[in-house]
């Protein structure tokens, strides 16, 4: 938990750029429209929700990548999403619509409250060439054991 409130750690190990951010997740109107409309397994939903918004400065520091890989604090889970620079976000933070992509990396610790850290989970972010998966592909890849 010590590391939890460290806002910004930059590690440039192994020639790779990786940074620690605080992940904020939340509703967006389009996510709401698609989810309530039963469209969670559609391409539109992926385009709307598999998105990681970040401060333009941080975006540049990461080399203005098209896609980023977001990894949970414990390093156990990661997910690829489209990176979007967004003025409204402070440096050191990222925003993702609340959906399966963001929840893959949300910290499951609830501090004995029953509610996980949907806002303020520490995550690692690096540029990636990995494909952004659809909700369906993500479930099959991460959750369903064959």
């Amino acid at each position, binding site marked *: 938990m010590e590391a*939890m*409130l460290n*806002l910004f750690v930059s590690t440039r190990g192994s020639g790779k750029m990786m940074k620690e951010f*605080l992940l*904020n997740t*939340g*509703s*967006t*109107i*389009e996510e*709401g*429209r*698609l*989810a*309530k*409309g*039963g*469209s*969670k*397994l559609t391409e539109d939903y992926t385009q709307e929700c598999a998105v990681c918004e970040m401060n333009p400065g941080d975006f540049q520091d990461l080399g203005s990548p098209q896609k980023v890989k977001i990894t*949970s604090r414990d390093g*156990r*889970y990661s997910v690829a999403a489209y990176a979007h620079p967004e*003025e*409204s*976000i*402070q440096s050191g*933070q990222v*925003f993702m619509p*609340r*959906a*399966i992509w963001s*929840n*893959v*990396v*949300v*910290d*499951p610790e*609830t*501090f*004995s*409250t*029953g*509610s*996980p*850290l*949907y*806002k*303020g989970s520490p995550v690692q972010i690096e540029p990636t060439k990995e494909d952004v998966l659809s*909700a*369906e592909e*993500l*479930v*099959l890849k*991460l*959750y*369903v*054991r*064959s």
Partner: protein
Amino acid sequence: MAFKNIICPVCGASCDDIQVELRGSKIVTKNACKMGNAKFWEIFSPHRIREPLLKESGSFCTALWDEAVDRAAMILVKAKRPLIFMGSETSCEAMQVGLHLAEFLGAIADSNSTVCHGPTAMGIQEAGRVGATAGQSKSRSDLVVYWGSNPLESMPRHMSRYGVYPRGYWTRRGRFDRTVITVDPRKSITARNSDLHIQLKPNTDYELLSALLTLLHGKKPHPSVEKVTGVSISEMEEMLERMLGCNFGAIYVGLGIASSFGKHRNAEAALNLVKELNNHTKFVIGALRGHCNVAGFNQIASYLYGYPFGLDFARGYPRYNPGEYTAVDVLREQDVDAALIVSADLVSHFPAACARYLAELPVACIDIAPCPTTMISQVVLPGVIDAMECDGTFYRLDDVPVYFQPFTGSPFSFTDSNEDTMKQIFQKVKEMKR
């Protein structure tokens, strides 16, 4: 056929002014927002789940209703410790059956309200709450604080119907009679439409609230609070001055309070602030409930069993201890071995460790459209859409019950509503246990 005053079953605003026109297999709505609209179109959507599905060696096949209900009941009866999860987009009547079923089985009953405003409910248990109905706030409030909430995206009509724009008896000029303050680490669209935006650092709500309370008690907060929260003490004083200067203030807390680091302690501090402000002027506080009827589970569970969420019936009587009996925790700790999930998409909305364990368990679900949770289930029962296809009760964001009537019927011959489906499962469970 045109229908008036239909209740929208999508978010906690429970708008009761939706007009619906059915033209053959087309539907035209008036007054609903984007999110609401999308759900009304679900009635005829091509991806609607219309038949019961059973998973056989990894893939789904359609099944007879009775067979599917049987399988769902079997999953529950065979389990040592099942989880009954009641999503929020269904009626209180269905939730009630779910709670009774959990009691009968000695199971755990939980709902979305836990991961939504569960911490707020816990804060209320610690500190008590000064509240008001949405109508009260609409008529009286001349100052609105959106704290950790972004209604323009999560409850699109909150500002226009209840919070900011409506003209009430004492707020005749609508928006012009109101000051809007937003507290959010993001310059959200709501923040951009506010008179004052307090842009604090994430995970520092507790410190900001604590500093405001200290100021109210006549002391200067410890100076480190400026660096911690990113908000200067003079900004805090300005905010407080505006709050003390109003006649009727309303604070709407969102998940920025309930979900961020600090959780129920954040909510408790916000509730304490409101209590304290009432020594100076009138102030109320309420939660912006993202999902429709997410308040309902808290209400029903509280009046039936004494606790608002995360109930454990293992010993025959209800027990409550968030962190021990709550869905995220029992899944993370692998402390349940089967689940019945009603109108909720846990696989999408729970952290990976929980979703992954859930995917290993026998799961039955009731839903209207395919989603990650239906994908990992063994039994999928088609859901009926409350407020469109059947009647029932929702609780609005301000804990006011709203009775809804449908404008069309259940599309299925085998069930009238999710309540009906739950009763059928319960009946089967009783027969099997006999």
